[in-house]
């Protein structure tokens, strides 16, 4: 009974996220209507069976726009987390395993970087690399997410430095690289997986914020955040635009949040 409920979060999260991701991936290849084609005859229609989420004031089908825009948001978030997690793990593993002066210096730099709220750091970097390009958003957000992953992973690798099984492996002649990848990395997964879900959600929200502010994704690309800023302008005439777009972001973050919650519960069960 107890065990069943523990995995309820995980199951619900996986189903919800799976459905949304499938919809967004499908939107990359096929949408019921063209997400960009304007249709003067179908302006500002409230939700109906023909247009599930209604249409905007150019007559564009919002459901199709949400599918396509969700795909863009998803791509950016996944790439961002990939950059942050891979580079963060590399830095964290190297500093945590070897320690020493490089470790100290990098951690001081890390402290200084955490002085910036993540959105501020992203804005700073986007201001440096140039606003309004999709791949610059990925670069800016990717860099922003490195320090937090590096910190988490450094702690994980440093705590294993002098554990018995690592010392044994070393005595058996295993090289540093082999120890790090084969013996240490698998033990960090229980921390890394929940960190990935939290990071993914932060990336979705950060991208949405930046695009909403007009310094993230810009046309012809459209992400959910950009669409929300577009929807704010039509709030009086087409409130369904803002509601369906915002709900899409919230549901995606909610689903992944549930997965994270489920993973943590599972860990506690194992302990």
């Amino acid at each position: 009974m107890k065990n069943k409920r523990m995995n309820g979060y995980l199951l619900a999260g996986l189903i919800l996220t799976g459905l949304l991701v499938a919809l967004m991936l499908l939107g990359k290849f096929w949408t019921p209507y063209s997400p960009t084609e304007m249709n003067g005859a179908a302006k500002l229609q409230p939700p109906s069976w023909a247009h599930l989420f209604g249409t905007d004031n150019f007559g564009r089908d919002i459901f199709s726009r949400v599918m396509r825009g969700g795909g863009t948001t998803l791509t950016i978030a996944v790439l961002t987390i990939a950059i942050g997690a891979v580079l963060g793990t590399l830095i964290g593993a190297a500093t945590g395993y070897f320690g020493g002066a490089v470790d100290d210096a990098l951690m001081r730099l890390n402290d200084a970087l955490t002085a910036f709220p993540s959105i501020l750091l992203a804005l700073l970097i986007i201001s440096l690399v140039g606003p309004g390009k999709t791949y610059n958003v990925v670069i800016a957000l990717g860099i922003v997410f490195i320090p937090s992953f590096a910190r988490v992973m450094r702690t994980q690798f440093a705590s294993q430095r002098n554990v018995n099984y690592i010392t044994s492996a070393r005595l058996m002649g295993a090289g540093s690289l082999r120890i790090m990848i084969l013996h240490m990395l698998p033990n960090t997964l229980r921390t890394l997986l929940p960190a990935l879900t939290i990071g993914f959600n932060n990336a979705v929200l950060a991208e949405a914020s930046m695009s909403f502010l007009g310094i993230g994704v810009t046309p012809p690309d459209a992400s959910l955040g950009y669409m929300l800023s577009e929807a704010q302008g039509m709030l009086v005439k087409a409130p369904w635009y803002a509601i369906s777009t915002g709900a899409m972001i919230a549901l995606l973050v909610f689903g992944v949040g549930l997965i994270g919650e489920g993973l943590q519960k599972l860990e506690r069960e194992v302990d």
Partner: protein
Amino acid sequence: MKYTIRRIWMLVVTMLIVSFMTFLAFELVSGDPAQTMLGTEATPEQLAALRHELGLDQPFFARYFRWLGGFFTGDLGSSYIYRQGVWGLIAPKLSLTLLLALISFILITVISIPLGVWSYRFVGGPFDWLRTTFNQLCMAVPPFFVGILLCWIFGIILHLFTPGDFPALRSDPGGALRHLLFASICLCIPRIAMTVRMMRSTVIGEMEKAYVRTAISRGNDRRQVLTRHVLKNSLTSTVTFLGQTMAELVGGSIVVEQVFGIPGLGRFLVSSISNRDYPVVQAIVVLLAFWVVLAGTIADLINQRVDPRLRLGGGAK
């Protein structure tokens, strides 16, 4: 006292690194400000004169320290776009953003701490999953989406305030405060959810400790143990978390100001980034970072007063 001095010294060092990184970064990308200000048709003489006037002909470190000193003297250079002193442009906006953060901070503290303790009662109960799910849902809703909904319901339908038209604080303080209150609500919702979650897990962790078991097995009332001992011991992590909240509010206000049309620092930062007005961006970034570091320092100093162990142990963890 020794700890206080060391903590403030850490603050100074962090700010030196932060300001240097910011200055260096913009130095690398900003090109020639004199050229930017005068445009492409300027004569070399005009350029040289303006460069001299802006102090651009001086070495890098001289310029850095002059700029750093500007945070104390109020001379932070002038904006490329507005051709005015940066400090004069920023100061009135800073007070608005501070006010917004302060209102949000008070709301979060007053609501989430009692709620966190109260939610402890449901641990392991049949409705625990409902609380967790609701909590996750609150954290998932982006603040600017809540902001848009609030604008729609309270602004456009109920006419309680006019989105995008912020009343001046001097002439209409009531209207301005009402506007700020609605803006702070959407900043608060996810943060309250996070604080409640944190409070709850801290209380759970504390209740599992031996001293609580001893106190209860000796016949003390469970609720009394909770309010008299457990809450006191949970205080330090709560203060640290609230310090982080103050810092997070900075980031959140950038977006929320845009939604509600509040002419604060965040909104100015965004427009300055779009305009590539680097002196303004530089100054705002360092000011906001200072805010974050200051919040962390104050939280640590409070903790050190509250918890004698930190004082005797001689430092932060």
